[in-house]
């Protein structure tokens, strides 16, 4: 499995001096509620980060704000992606630039089949990179290999996007899309939630197959369990809208042992 996405990336992307993602003192509100209260984060290519935290700590918000979901008010702070102002880009531009969000609750789009969505998405990214669009046969060849990795049956391509999918199927579908799109930065929001151990392993192997020097992965998760299968380089703990603590994987193990209250007390 090679990351062709990275090979044509601008030189800046692989320049260690410019982080892939740099978030500075980000404050975000939803309505009257301050959800992020000064988040800073630096992610370089080749890294895998885990963002952990209790429910309501703002970790899903962070992922969605970075992807450009409407409904959030950015009060102050900045985010750059390969040095570009992320918030100046429309959601689809961020996606085409190589930012991928794996949804916790992927929405159903009845009547639109998976193959169609995947082709449209893959070609949007390819156009952005100045690559020729894939025809139906090239696309099939590409997607088949990824599907077998994700243990997804081929009949899936003709089904409606997430239509009638089980929770596990939806999550595997998210990872399949990520494998096809080969993003530079993958934000995976609670990708492990609702998965049994077998499905978790499949999802983890899909994510691991995409680990590469040219891209970064951010796992947003409540539990340490996922991190046994996808071992992060860095772990951050969000509490009350701030990164309360950062460390390596041992931090996740400590959280497992002591719970989030311990962090919460420290952050308060």
């Amino acid at each position: 499995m090679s990351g062709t996405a990275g090979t044509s990336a601008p030189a800046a992307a692989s320049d260690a001096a410019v982080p892939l993602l740099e978030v500075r003192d980000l404050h975000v509100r939803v309505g009257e509620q301050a959800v992020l209260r000064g988040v800073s984060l630096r992610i370089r290519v080749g890294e895998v980060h885990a963002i952990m935290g209790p429910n309501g700590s703002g970790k899903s918000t962070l992922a969605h704000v970075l992807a450009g979901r409407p409904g959030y008010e950015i009060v102050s702070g900045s985010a750059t992606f390969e040095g570009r102002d992320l918030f100046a880009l429309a959601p689809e531009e961020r996606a085409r630039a190589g930012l991928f969000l794996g949804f916790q609750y992927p929405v159903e789009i009845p009547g639109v089949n998976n193959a169609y969505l995947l082709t449209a998405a893959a070609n949007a990214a390819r156009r952005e990179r100045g690559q020729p669009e894939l025809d139906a046969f090239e696309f099939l060849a590409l997607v088949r290999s990824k599907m077998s990795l994700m243990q997804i049956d081929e009949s899936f391509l003709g089904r409606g996007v997430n239509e009638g999918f089980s929770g596990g199927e939806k999550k595997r579908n998210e990872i399949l899309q990520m494998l096809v799109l080969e993003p530079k930065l993958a934000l995976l929001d609670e990708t492990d939630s609702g998965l049994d151990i077998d499905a978790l392993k499949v999802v983890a192997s899909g994510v691991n197959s995409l680990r590469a020097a040219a891209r970064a992965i951010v796992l947003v998760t409540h539990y340490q369990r996922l991190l046994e299968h996808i071992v992060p380089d860095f772990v951050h703990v969000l509490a009350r809208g701030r990164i309360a603590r950062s460390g390596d994987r041992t931090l996740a193990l400590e959280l497992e042992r002591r719970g989030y209250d311990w962090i919460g007390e420290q952050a308060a």
Partner: protein
Amino acid sequence: MSTPDIDALVNRSYRHGFVTDIDADTVPPGLDESVVRLISRKKGEPQFLLDWRLRALRHWQSMREPHWAHLRYQPIDYDGISYYSAPKQASDGPKSLADVDPKLLATYEKLGVPLHERARLAGVAVDAVFDSVSVATTFKERLAAAGVVFCPFSEAAQKHPALLEQYLGTVVPYTDNFYATLNSAVFSDGSFVYVPRGVRCPMELSTYFRINAAKTGQFERTLIIADEGASVSYLEGCTAPMRDENQLHAAVVELIALDDAQIKYSTVQNWYPGDEQGRGGIYNFVTKRGECRGRNARISWTQVETGSAITWKYPSCILRGENSVGEFYSVATTNHYQQADTGSKMIHIGANTRSTIISKGISAGHGQNAYRGLVKILPTAVGARNFTQCDSLLMGKHCGAHTFPYLEVRNPTATIEHEASTSRISEEQLFYCLQRGIGAEDAVNMIVSGFCRTVFKELPMEFAVEAQNLLAVSLEGAVG
């Protein structure tokens, strides 16, 4: 950077809104016996047809315009309409494509009508009706070799009077309704198809209608007969130029399927819908009805309605022959100030008759979209079955969707199912597509196409793509 909100992506302009500058032979506005006689004389019609027209006219003069539909519009001034308009020709009519005014051909070129050789390559035989006269009918010879008659209605009146006399008005009688009766009196042209016993029509048949002249009405009449064991697929496309005033279109289509015959009738209707403020646009009052007259006959209506200011049409099936099947698949879009009141009637008379109604209504802007459908099971229709599904999709806050289903079941063995849903394109669906790098307009088109998929797959392949594109154009600016 903001995500386009759904209230705003639908405002590209109508692409077929050009006027062709051609000398037209147009009768003065107003309707009386002399106009009907003039039309009939210009066409050199047999006496029975003139008599039929005159009976219709007299009946129409005793009728009142119906107002039961969920539609609001300025009153139509029937005395202000010209009931006949034809492009002026040196001779009486084109003998072949070479005789057709190049400006007319250029018009069709702009519309993307595959006349000339392109049509043959596409396997489509095209009858193009411009205002009131049929301009050119392609591929007559290949059809004639199969014994299929496909010609302008006025030609059929001269060459196939016996067939006309036998079948005309037997599904939609001249007394049927206000607009059908008007049409019966003044219809000027349209298509005639006869597929003889046991013949599968060797190609898709297609008609393009276009209203060009100002202040004219278009009243085409189409009659399709599939004899025993015959089958035919027919598609009509419609466009009109942009004009500030409203133009009336009152067509009648009659289909007759005998034993084991099949007729598939598809419509892509893109009459000028009016502008963003609701000025102008076509008033489309159309009566379409098919009769499965024989056993195991099948009639299938598929329509994609994206145009017209007002749409009033209910393609219907009379299921007389036992085991006969009626189908209605519809996508109706209303954007800006368009209004549609459309649906179907399935009249079950024969035993074990089956019908399916799938209706997809899409409303955007200030559009109003009503589904109106009747399923009627007569006492003789033992074991009849109907399945109806109407789904509405709303885009934005100012549009409306309405459903008026009528059921009359007079046989206890009948099975009737009705499903209905109303949904909106959600911000979540839109964001999901955007996050995959798909632009807002493409995303909306994708979601809407998905919504319409069960109908689009009923269209002949080449037209399914056209329909999808048309839908995309008509919803431009609905999100933005």
